[in-house]
């Protein structure tokens, strides 16, 4: 099984420790992913703004980097959603389609491909509020959504429940968007900030010490809001918890 690791651009720059935790976690399961060195970005920032033409070259580069792998693992549901559902600026050759189909999020890879049944090295004795990234939830179906009448499930929560010590807290409006939304956070700052503030207040009101998510981008936005409000919340990517970070 040839596995590649894609570390999204914002994670590369702002959250290198999440990339490292993902790499180490995969190695714990006997998967040693390759890291194609010329990787940059999946094109989402441009595509999210409607600028498909402007994203084309970036998408082509992505496909060049990741052709030929059985799995391309990404610690971001949002980037996976872009690649799987929206990477259409690049010509849809067979290779491109294959790359798109073989890309999966870290949570999916652990839950659906490796079908892991425990993280014996991990322990996280804290109150955790889990944040669903909207693309992960409603785009690649990490879990059931409150809008639909469907059997309840959650891939990330079922993974977190395997970690010793974790106490999951229930917040109000559990799957409401936090207002990040990529370019939305810049072009609609008024609502973006208000949504972020409401979200972190809900985490705090539920008694959470930590906010955990499978996407760092929402958490960068939320952390900015929490810090500004002076809320003592801490933010961790799910890869860090599953890899055994204690705090």
């Amino acid at each position, binding site marked *: 099984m040839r596995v590649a690791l894609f*570390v999204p651009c914002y994670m590369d720059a702002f959250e290198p420790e999440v990339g490292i935790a993902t790499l180490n976690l995969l190695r714990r399961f006997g998967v040693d992913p390759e890291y194609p060195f*010329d990787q940059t970005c999946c094109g989402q*920032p441009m595509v999210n703004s409607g600028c498909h033409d402007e994203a084309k*070259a970036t998408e082509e580069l992505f496909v060049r980097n990741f052709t030929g792998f059985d799995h391309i693992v990404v610690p971001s549901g949002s980037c996976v959603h872009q690649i799987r559902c929206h990477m259409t600026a690049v010509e849809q050759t067979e290779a491109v389609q294959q790359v798109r189909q073989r890309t999966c999020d870290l949570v999916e890879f652990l839950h659906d491909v490796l079908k892991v049944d425990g993280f014996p090295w991990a322990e996280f004795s804290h109150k955790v509020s889990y944040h669903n990234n909207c693309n992960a939830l409603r785009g690649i179906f990490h879990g059931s959504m409150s809008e639909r009448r469907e059997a309840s499930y959650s891939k990330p929560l079922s993974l977190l429940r395997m970690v010793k010590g974790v106490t999951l807290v229930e917040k109000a409006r559990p799957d*409401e968007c936090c207002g990040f939304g990529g*370019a939305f956070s810049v072009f*609609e*700052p008024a609502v973006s900030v208000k949504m972020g503030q409401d979200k972190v207040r809900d985490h705090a009101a539920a008694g959470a010490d930590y906010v955990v998510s499978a996407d760092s981008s929402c958490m960068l936005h939320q952390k900015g809001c929490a810090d500004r409000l002076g809320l003592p919340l801490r933010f961790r990517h799910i890869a860090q918890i599953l890899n055994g970070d204690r705090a």
Partner: protein
Amino acid sequence: MSEGPRLDSDGLPALLHRELRAGDDGGARDSLGGRLTHGEATSRPLRPPTPEPQPRGAVLHRHRPVDHDEAAQRFIDAPRHEKMHDERLWDLRQKRDRQMHAIPEWEALRDLASTVKQHTLAHLDEYLEQFEAQAVANGIHVHWARDGAEHNTVVHGILADHGARRLIKSKSMLTEETGLRHYLAGVGIEVVETDLGERIQQLDDEAPSHIVVPAVHKLRSDVAEVFARTLGTDPGNDDVHYLAEQQREKTRPVILEADAGMTGANFAVAETGTFVVCTNEGNADLSANVPPLHIASIGIEKLIPRIADLGVFIRLLSRSALGSPITQYTSHFRGPRHGGEMHVVLVDNGRSARLGEPQFWQSLKCIRCGACMNTCPVYRRSGGLSYGATYSGPIGLILDPTFDRRRYSTLPFASTLNGSCTNVCPVKINIHEQIFAWRKVLAKSHDIGTAKQGLMKAAGAILAHPALYRAAIAAADSALKVLPAFLVANPLNSWTRGRDMPAPPRETFHQWHHRTDGGRKQAP
């Protein structure tokens, strides 16, 4: 001997559906807790000390796109309005969820509703002709209008034929589209809205902010102000029952003297040539049944094939809209009353053009329930008027640009693309995917603003070249200037308005991987 009606503990007649009872609205009550009638209610309820002025909607400029963010900021800066609005609509969303959970076949119903609508739209020409033939056979006069202007002229013509000077009408988004009220005012015909919320908006000379609850953005203190100004009520009394009663007393005589009545339609049934109007106030029945002349304006997408299909939509409509099993009134109109006249105006106004657009035709399935607005976190926090358009919220983002692409070019960006709307929509319109598709269309035609497009072009150029990208983010703080997810480069530095910047790291993942051979070499 018959007993009186069964009463609840608060002395009000017992409800069949207790869950429908409104919570305590803070209205005036006597010492035993009974609600004061309007005559007594001049005693003032406790009010917060300083009323917060109502934030107004988007400022419209002739040639500039709507600035949704600017209007949203003003809405958010009125915290009592924003909080009430957010919580009130979220409450509707939760009531809708409870209704959904009470219906095991909910998702199947949505599928069915979507299929019926798709089928109807695919054969719209046939169903329209069938409807017309049946309606004419029922004694209805049927008119066709290509656009809003033609609609207004047709309506004016009918009214003029009857020498009608005063029209009472119930809520209709279609007549908002066509600007009927202003048009008729211009030709000397008085229009009185009979829906309470719509009447409030009319008196305040403001557009409806929501397609189901038009004045939902107003606090009762705002309504007290409007009524004091326009109806002469006590400016210091904002008891909701007092206000509602006052409006009723002032409007009923007008209704009784009206020459003509107008309604919209929620559904028009091809098989029978009949149409159905759903209201909670019964006001459509007043508009339709009090004056001798009834005009119904119906968008051509309102067709459904058979009366048997109606049940699917009736089951979904009010549950999705307000979280109630059904509207108080579901009125079927079949033909003119004895001695009366009934006219139907079938209006296109851009609909057939939209039907030809592969990416956007599904928006015609909309039954105007407003569920997408109630669930939308952006709509709830910005208010419907911040969109500066006839339709607001998620459905507005995809309809408005079809009416005026340039003015509403900013609206598809007033969304986080979170997808909640798509999943509450009772007719399964892929709303957030259409918002996404609109962005693409607007970028292609360079309608997204040169600053934004320039940034995306620069970002795309750097992200497509590993060496450029590496050089650009080599210095930690310059990464912030390149990474388009944050786009914090001036002149668009808005990130820090209410958030702190993320701290730049010492080393990127890439540098770490290079230095340590992916962690295999121990750091020195």
